[in-house]
């Protein structure tokens, strides 16, 4: 029995409906939705979604302006922060998600009996960095930058769904090109690829010593 299904067996409170009719403008084919209700619906929908949910998706489903949803979400984020509670509402992979706060990870791990999942090897991380910054990029191009022949790191990243195929390059042999996936954004806590620091920012680090 899903949590979502649990939500089905009750009627809306008549008082609230009356209230919602009094504020907020009417949208065609849709009953009035107060801003408080909009916030509540957005929160509930983000909660049941099993991946980060965009404001646009929410707006499309309940047939209101995206701006209204965006306002509601900004309000919600402020509420979550003000409550100083165990959860946060955050933007990730071009969507919104409810998640725990990092400071409680020890207790949550203790409950889930989970250990920090195996980290990627240095080879995989470097390969991932090359793909993230050079995408779409082919295996030969990755090997050229890394200076090593082993392409097995690419396979590891595919297996972990951190990268995806992005078509073929129109050169000799038509090699497959790779780019980062949505899963990559999620696992590395990124809103989108523009949130990655520029690769040139690492220039100062490179060769900076000595």
């Amino acid at each position: 029995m899903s949590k979502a299904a649990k939500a089905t067996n009750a009627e809306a409170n008549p008082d609230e409906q009356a209230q919602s009719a009094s504020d907020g403008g009417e949208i065609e084919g849709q009953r009035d939705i107060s801003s408080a209700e909009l916030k509540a619906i957005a929160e509930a929908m983000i909660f049941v979604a099993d991946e980060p949910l965009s404001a646009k998706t929410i707006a499309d489903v309940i047939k209101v302006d995206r701006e209204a949803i965006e306002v509601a979400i900004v309000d919600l984020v402020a509420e979550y922060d003000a409550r100083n509670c165990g959860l946060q509402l955050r933007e990730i992979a071009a969507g919104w998600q409810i998640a725990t706060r990092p400071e409680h990870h020890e207790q949550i791990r203790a409950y889930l009996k989970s250990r920090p999942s195996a980290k990627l090897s240095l080879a995989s991380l470097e390969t991932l960095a090359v793909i993230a910054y050079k995408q779409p990029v082919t295996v030969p191009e990755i090997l050229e930058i890394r200076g090593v022949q082993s392409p097995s790191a690419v396979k590891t990243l595919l297996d972990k769904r951190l990268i995806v195929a992005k078509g073929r390059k129109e050169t000799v042999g038509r090699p497959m090109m790779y780019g980062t996936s949505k899963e990559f954004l999620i696992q590395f806590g990124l809103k989108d690829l523009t949130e990655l620091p520029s690769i040139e920012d690492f220039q100062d680090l490179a060769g900076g010593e000595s």
Partner: protein
Amino acid sequence: MEDTAPTDMAAPATAEAPAEAAQTISVANSQPEITPDGDSDQLKITLGDFEGPLDLLLYLIRQEQVNIYDIPIARITDVYLRYLILMQELDLTVAGDFLVMAAQLIELKSRMLLPRDPLAEEEEVLDPRAELMNRLLEHEKFKAAAQMLWSRATVEQAVFTRAEIETDTNNPEVSVGLFDLLRVFEEILARHKEEILLEIEREEVSMAEMIDRLRNMVRSAGELNLMKFFERAKSRRELVVAFLSVLELVRMSEISLVQSETFGDIMARTASPMEA
């Protein structure tokens, strides 16, 4: 976790315990060390996560405290080669990439020794080290980027989302990417192959059947290439039965074997009436 190829030398190892080469990889702050071991001349080596020759070179440049923009090629080449020899002495597989770099360094070193062409314009004289330097700088940028990703992933691992909401357990759904499609297809093919093999195992050809088969094939064609006959065998056991049946028919003088040249094909023929 072991997702690097063995040739990557990714696993840290020590001179004392090379057997522990398969231990887990720690990404951060794992630098190799060479330290004198007590009074002896022996060097104690801790290898870091060298992901290839560029990594090793960068490390050596740091260790030797030389300027990456003005690498003393002769000195670095010597240190690099010494390092490769040490790795070999430790029985660590030195991957081809390391050897290629060694060759490039030696070539660079010899080019540095050549006198400059006095006729060449000053601007046209490119530093032979420029390409290597650029590759090193580029590589180091991505190493730094990898560290950044690592710290991001670490923070992210401390964040949890809600548990899966159960869906229909009888029909578990999987979200699909392009490579899933290929992987699944390969799995089907592999499964298919296994089934064929299993069926062959069950199908047993008796000695008598095999003798009949051989006899008929030789009779109908007049002669039979034995190699072809053996290749028809679908299992090791069937091959043995095929071999025995050839011996049996030769023993009974029903067929004779002919080899027209040394190492040539062996043909089975109906034994000629003269021999019979």
